[in-house]
């Protein structure tokens, strides 16, 4: 929850919004529960009127409205996060196995790095994720959400680091006894550093 890229940042905002809303709803329910014990019941309220208030009002209308708003927020956000156009996007490849990660680069054929993924900072990067053995998941929490590495399938995750730096990443789907230590690093370079990194490959 310390975002360092647009995807992670927008998800963090989503979280704080939901937390505030949830806290309010939780407080409301607890308050209603408390009042039930504190009040003297109004005599002879018709059952029908009570149903209207509790079931139509609080049970139906209230959640429907809140949830509709939240759902639309979530879907719109989701749309912005899925990789659509592939122009001007750096493409890298991540291959998971028990228990290490190896990375390849579309801009430098033949270049492979083990345990360290290099990306340019300040622009979108599509990570093509797959697995050589069991199901794993690619997760660099400060850059974006996670996406599974599944054998026989390639999944594309869009990540972006706003600033150059080193970011922590882990395999995030249980993958056997070595799972706890299954980690990698993402290094985001500035433009010069990225060029130098790619240049190293062609040497």
């Amino acid at each position, binding site marked *: 929850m310390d975002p360092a890229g647009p995807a992670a940042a927008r998800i963090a905002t989503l979280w704080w919004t939901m937390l505030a809303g949830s806290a309010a709803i939780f407080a409301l329910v607890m308050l209603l529960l408390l009042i039930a014990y504190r009040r003297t019941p109004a005599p002879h309220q018709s059952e029908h009127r009570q149903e209207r208030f509790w079931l139509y009002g609080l049970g139906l209308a209230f959640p429907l409205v809140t949830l*509709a708003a939240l759902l639309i927020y979530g*879907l719109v956000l989701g*749309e912005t996060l*899925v*990789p*659509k156009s592939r122009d001007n996007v750096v493409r890298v490849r991540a291959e998971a196995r028990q228990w290490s990660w190896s990375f390849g680069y579309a801009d430098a054929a033949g270049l492979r790095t083990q345990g360290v993924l290099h990306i340019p900072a300040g622009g979108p990067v599509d990570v093509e994720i797959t697995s050589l053995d069991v199901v794993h998941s690619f997760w660099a929490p400060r850059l974006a959400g996670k996406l599974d590495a599944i054998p026989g399938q390639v999944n594309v995750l869009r990540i972006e680091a706003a600033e150059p730096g080193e970011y922590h990443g882990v395999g995030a789907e249980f993958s056997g006894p070595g799972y706890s230590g299954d980690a990698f690093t993402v290094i985001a370079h500035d433009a010069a550093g990225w060029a130098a990194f790619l240049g190293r490959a062609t040497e």
Partner: protein
Amino acid sequence: MKDVVRIVIAMLVWLALFSALYGLEGVGCAAGWQHIQVTGATLFQAAMTLAFFVALLILAAVLVGLRSPLFRSASPFIAHISIILAVAALVAGAWTLFPALALSHCA
């Protein structure tokens, strides 16, 4: 037994339609419908949109059916519950399937 069917039918139909649309989406993407153009939209869009409205139509038909004297339960209790659930199924249809109209395809 018939009353039990009256209670479960609407939501069961919703479940079937929901699964069908999800399946259609899978089939459409697998068959590459998003690349086929038909009069301004892709075949994929057209199919999903059509399926959405057909689904709502079916759910509305269930609702009308359960209200009509032909299928309505003799027990007011069952009749009431089955109609609540038919409305719920219709709302659930619109609520859960509307992404078929709007969202990005196969990505």
